[in-house]
């Protein structure tokens, strides 16, 4: 059984007992424990079930590479699935549950899949569930979705907050092990700003556990000294619990800081996403131990050798009383020694190698009285939910059992792989190292910056160095080089002198025993999380999946939350063997950020709740809200759709407001419409290019409606242009078009017409603009007083500056409703006061505010187009009958050339008409008019579509506009629009101008 030892525990605070629960059972641990170490201390070796076969799964590792010990953490508001127990720091009150089992962890019905494993080979789902087709959607997919998947999705709203932080530094060191700290020191003495990120809560990485000396002192003491030296340097920042998640172009690195995962009672954000710009990046990310592939290597109790000694030394936890070590390298001997020192039994070390002479570690182990079997391996592991022993065989054979040895833990080591993830994210290349059977960074092919120089350097074991002397030498050199790359003169400081035992060469072992038959191979796991076995990868190769990327997706090797941290190298070695090619030729799958999963909350940062998205508010926004406005989003703005009164439906409010504008007086908050000042000697020439019609001939004091097309001829915006003086224009845009059109103008001015004398400025928000509309509009302004707004003084399509009721303003006599209408711009800061004044003078004139829906109906009654309704990016002015706005006098304007193209000039393009249902009903918006016959795809032919449709209270019937084939030539003809409601609407083609076709009402 696994248990807590009475003494020791480098990271434990035994004075601080900590209570937590696992699957509802109350358990005890200590401060400093991880959830994994605390579970092991409580003899919880079985912690989950595998993805496909629901096999029992135990803790394998002690760090980020853990594939099995994934748990649900927290409850309502803090629930989070798929959290690695090995990287979860224990805190008082932690609640955790295991995943992927039903009905219970101990007894799982899905484990039947394991018995059926023969029938569920690689690509099983692809092969099995493809026919018959309809079953996929209705039977297979729901079933698989229910059965598969590890954690559950959170149901409650996340109770925590998150944030981003933009940090800049000269040298960023990712990894706070002995290599990272040494590199940081070497860089920092130059005076460079150095930021060091360490993903765990502790500094020093593996060094304090693995031992060795630096300058004659034990390495753990040296870590402490280095830390205190770095802490005292003002140019160094040290951050624990912060993982380097990804490396991107231009020295951009994401760091993932977990602020409160270990202290949920603290205030502040839970996670912080560091968005770092570093001049140079050092990846001192260490190395990960590889498992060995032997039958039963997934049975709980089979662990990485390094993890076994981590639990003993760091947490004083014995994973088992009797530990069999199986290895292909010297490093695992350290585990045997650690167990022995803790008073635990190591019945045997099975070493697949047959070395000519004993290395120092081998000699030390033998001296300690541990039995060592060279050239041997594990034929299979005995046990079901827990290891009970191993069957020993010769590595060179086919698995004939020589003896069975009882044990409850198997500590395996297949060698080490440098963590090359961050090095690779931005294009760093890898080399195959035959001596250590691993991929290591190819330092001659580093990720390069804009200047073509390397901006990432790997250091220490992340660079494929394993002896302490080599690690420290490399890290020191990389630190100095990074400082120089960041523009600093490296300081004079001596490289630390590391010493560790010389190790015998490792031997690559990709399958144990090497001649294992199919029975053993189909129990030899490569990927614990996704249930991929040696036999699966071999089958994939047989079936032709030669590319490692294809084999990954076909077998699911290296997918899901651990992204193959343990399985990748073993899997591609098996694949290479099956393809009979060397490993470097097979290559690796792509390393993509993040290094381990980061929370969605951290990615979203502050953007949630009130600040999820900016909501733009006009100066009168609060008034609208207080007066019952039903808002609709228009871009980022919120505009009143209508102002329903108490007991009134939104529809009724729209009808009332629409009628009132035609009968009395309406006020519209038009502040959101874009206003762009265009000034300069070439302003007229510029606007002639931007608008399809002529603007340069406009006289100061006058307004003109204009259309804008893009280079491709399609309509992009419209609005009224006012000429302010000889070289100044004010261009109104649509609400959504203000920023876009401003950018469009700047782009042309900066890239094409850079020598034209034109300046533009977006002054949209300088003004609150109110449309005062209706037969009583003039009376209202006269009541405010201060300006002659008579027909004679201010004609239709004219503007004037002045004051109204004491407000400095500009009054435009323009109309989007067909009524007598003024649009009045005042300073935004006075917008609310001006609106209030209008409401006061309007009181006796029947004033009502009206919203955007009434605005739409009023313009539709007049046949005025709306950008975004009548246009959708594929519509040209000719489609809308706006030929009059296409100047024939101008040599050129944006879109002119495009309009000459054959498809643009095609007479069969659908054209704008009015549509009137035969029974007064309202056509469904967006409905299509059907024609006879079917097209080449067997679909019904179409002859038009509805672009706008409303019920007009003024005409008391449904009115619509639409684009119809040969529409203007078919006046009076009836066409049919099937709706999605099952009804078919008959509509007559009519003029789009339903109301006051002579335009008398607006010109009074």
């Amino acid at each position, binding site marked *: 059984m696994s248990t807590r030892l009475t003494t020791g525990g480098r990271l434990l605070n035994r004075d601080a007992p900590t209570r937590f629960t696992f699957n509802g059972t109350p358990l005890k641990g200590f401060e400093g424990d991880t959830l994994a170490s605390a579970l092991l201390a409580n003899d919880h070796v079985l912690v989950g079930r595998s993805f496909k076969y629901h096999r029992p799964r135990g803790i394998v590792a002690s760090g980020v590479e853990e594939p099995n010990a994934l748990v649900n953490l927290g409850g309502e508001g803090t629930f989070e699935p798929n959290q690695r127990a090995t990287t979860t720091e224990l805190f008082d009150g932690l609640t955790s549950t295991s995943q992927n089992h039903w009905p219970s962890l101990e007894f799982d019905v899905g484990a039947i899949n394991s018995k059926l494993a023969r029938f569920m080979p690689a690509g099983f789902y692809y092969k099995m569930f493809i026919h018959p087709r309809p079953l996929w959607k209705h039977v297979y997919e729901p079933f698989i979705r229910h059965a598969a998947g590890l954690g559950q999705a959170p149901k409650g709203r996340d109770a925590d*907050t998150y*944030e*981003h*932080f*933009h*940090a*800049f530094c000269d040298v960023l060191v990712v990894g706070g092990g002995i290599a990272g700290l040494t590199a940081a020191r070497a860089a920092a003495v130059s005076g460079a*700003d150095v930021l060091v990120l360490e993903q765990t809560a502790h500094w020093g990485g593996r060094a304090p556990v693995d031992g060795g000396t630096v300058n004659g002192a034990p390495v753990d003491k040296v870590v402490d000294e280095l830390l205190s030296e770095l802490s005292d340097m003002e140019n160094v*920042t040290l951050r624990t619990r912060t993982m380097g998640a990804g490396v991107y172009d231009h020295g951009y690195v994401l760091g993932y800081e977990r602020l409160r995962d270990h202290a949920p009672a*603290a*205030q*502040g*954000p839970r996670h*912080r996403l560091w*968005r770092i*710009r570093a001049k140079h990046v050092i990846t001192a990310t260490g190395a990960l131990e590889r498992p060995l592939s032997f039958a039963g290597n997934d049975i709980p109790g089979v662990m990485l050798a390094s993890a076994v000694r981590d639990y003993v030394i760091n947490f004083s936890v014995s994973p088992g009383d009797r530990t069999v070590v199986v290895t292909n390298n010297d490093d695992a001997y350290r585990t045997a020694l650690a167990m022995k020192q803790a008073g635990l039994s190591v019945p045997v070390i099975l070493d697949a190698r047959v070395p000519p002479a004993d290395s120092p570690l081998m000699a030390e182990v033998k001296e300690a009285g541990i039995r060592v079997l060279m050239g041997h391996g594990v034929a299979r592991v005995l046990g079901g939910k827990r290891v009970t022993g191993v069957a020993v065989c010769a590595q060179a054979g086919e698995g004939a059992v020589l003896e069975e040895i009882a044990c409850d833990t198997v500590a395996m080591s297949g060698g080490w792989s440098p963590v090359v993830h961050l090095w690779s994210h931005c294009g760093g290349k890898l080399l195959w190292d035959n001596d250590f059977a691993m991929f290591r960074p190819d330092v001659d092919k580093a990720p390069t910056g804009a200047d073509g120089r390397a901006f990432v350097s790997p250091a220490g074991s992340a660079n494929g160095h394993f002896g302490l002397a080599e690690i420290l030498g490399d890290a020191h050199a990389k630190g100095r080089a990074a400082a120089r790359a960041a523009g600093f003169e490296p300081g004079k400081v001596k490289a630390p002198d590391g010493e560790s035992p010389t190790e015998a060469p490792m031997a690559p072992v990709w399958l144990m025993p090497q001649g294992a038959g199919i029975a053993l191979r189909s129990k030899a796991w490569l990927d614990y999380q996704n249930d991929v076995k040696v036999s699966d990868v071999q089958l994939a190769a047989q079936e032709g999946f030669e590319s490692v990327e294809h084999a990954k997706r076909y077998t699911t090797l290296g997918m899901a939350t651990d992204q193959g941290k343990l399985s990748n190298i073993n899997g591609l070695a098996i694949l290479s063997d099956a393809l009979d090619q060397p490993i470097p030729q097979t290559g690796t799958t792509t390393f993509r950020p993040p290094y381990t999963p980061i929370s969605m909350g951290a990615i979203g*940062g*502050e*953007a949630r709740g*009130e*600040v999820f*998205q*900016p*909501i*733009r*508010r*006009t*100066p009168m926004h609060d008034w609208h809200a207080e007066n019952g406005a039903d808002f609709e989003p228009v871009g980022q*703005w919120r505009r009143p759709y209508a102002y329903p009164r108490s007991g009134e439906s939104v529809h009724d409010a729209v009808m009332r407001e629409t009628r009132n504008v035609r009968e009395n007086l309406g006020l519209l908050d038009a502040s959101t419409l874009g206003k762009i*000042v265009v*000034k*300069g*000697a070439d302003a007229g020439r510029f606007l002639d290019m931007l608008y399809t019609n002529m603007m340069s001939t406009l006289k100061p004091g006058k307004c003109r409606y204009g259309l804008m097309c893009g280079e491709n001829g399609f309509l992009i915006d419209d609005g009224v242009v006012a000429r302010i003086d000889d070289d100044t224009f004010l261009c109104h845009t649509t609400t959504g078009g203000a920023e876009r059109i401003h950018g469009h103008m700047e782009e042309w001015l900066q890239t094409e017409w850079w020598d034209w*004398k034109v*300046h*533009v*400025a977006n*002054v*949209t*928000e*300088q*003004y609150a603009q109110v449309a005062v509309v209706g037969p009583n509009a003039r009376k209202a302004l006269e009541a405010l007083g201060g300006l002659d707004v008579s027909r004679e003084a201010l004609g239709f399509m004219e503007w004037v500056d002045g004051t109204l009721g*004491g*407000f400095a303003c500009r009054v435009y006599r323009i109309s989007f409703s067909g009524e007598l209408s003024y649009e009045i711009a005042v*300073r*935004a*800061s*006075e917008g*609310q*006061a*001006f609106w209030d004044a209008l409401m006061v003078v309007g009181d006796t004139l029947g004033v009502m505010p009206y919203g955007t829906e009434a605005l739409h109906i009023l313009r539709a009654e007049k046949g005025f187009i709306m950008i975004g309704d009548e246009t959708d990016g594929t519509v040209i002015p000719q489609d809308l009958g706006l030929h009059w706005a296409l100047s024939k006098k101008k040599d050129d304007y944006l879109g002119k050339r495009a309009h000459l193209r054959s498809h643009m000039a095609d007479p069969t393009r659908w054209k704008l008409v009015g549509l009137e249902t035969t029974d007064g009903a309202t056509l469904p918006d967006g409905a299509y008019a059907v024609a006879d016959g079917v097209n080449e795809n067997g679909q019904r032919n179409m002859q038009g579509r509805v672009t706008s449709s409303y019920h007009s209270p003024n005409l008391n019937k449904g009115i619509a506009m639409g684009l119809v084939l040969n529409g203007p030539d078919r006046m009076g003809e009836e066409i049919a629009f099937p709706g999605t409601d099952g009804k078919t609407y008959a509509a007559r083609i009519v003029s789009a101008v339903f109301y006051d076709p002579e335009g008398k009402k607006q010109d009074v």
Partner: protein
Amino acid sequence: MSKAVSALNGATWSDGIATVTEAPLQGMITLRGDLTSRAVIKAATGAAGLKMPAQGMAGCEGERGICWMSPDEVLVLCAYGDVTGTLEKMHKVLGDAHALAVDVSDARAMFRVAGKGARDVMAKLAPVDVRPAAFEAGMFRRTRMAQVPAAFWMREDGTFHVICFRSNAQYMFDLLKVAAQTGSGVGYF
């Protein structure tokens, strides 16, 4: 007349690692033109009574100031009540020169972010290097803060002045409060 009100009517908040205050209305004039031309320089410096700022800088004194916005744009600051007069003077100085001077005082909202955590707050929201050695009093950045355009500069007392579009005032205020929440000090500066 007292009809003019700032977007949030001077809202203030100080329950976290920094104090956030909406500043009173501030006169702001956008001046676009050739920043090396005599007329443009004279118009700007005459209006503010201050020297032309170098790239990325803001020279401010009281309510007056000139902020560098782009290679062809500066923002001239003056008292809100003086905008009309200042603009008239600038137009006179500019004469026929190719330039655009326009009042944008009401198009903007301005906030002050002060206190120990002010740099933290700015660094959380803007992709700007605000390390003390990199961002000093008198410096100016036209940038974004979270999802909206913004610009900010720092005064001698370490207070950041943030400007954004008026319509985004509430968003900016809420954003600054979130970034300044208790317990969120970063400890990087």
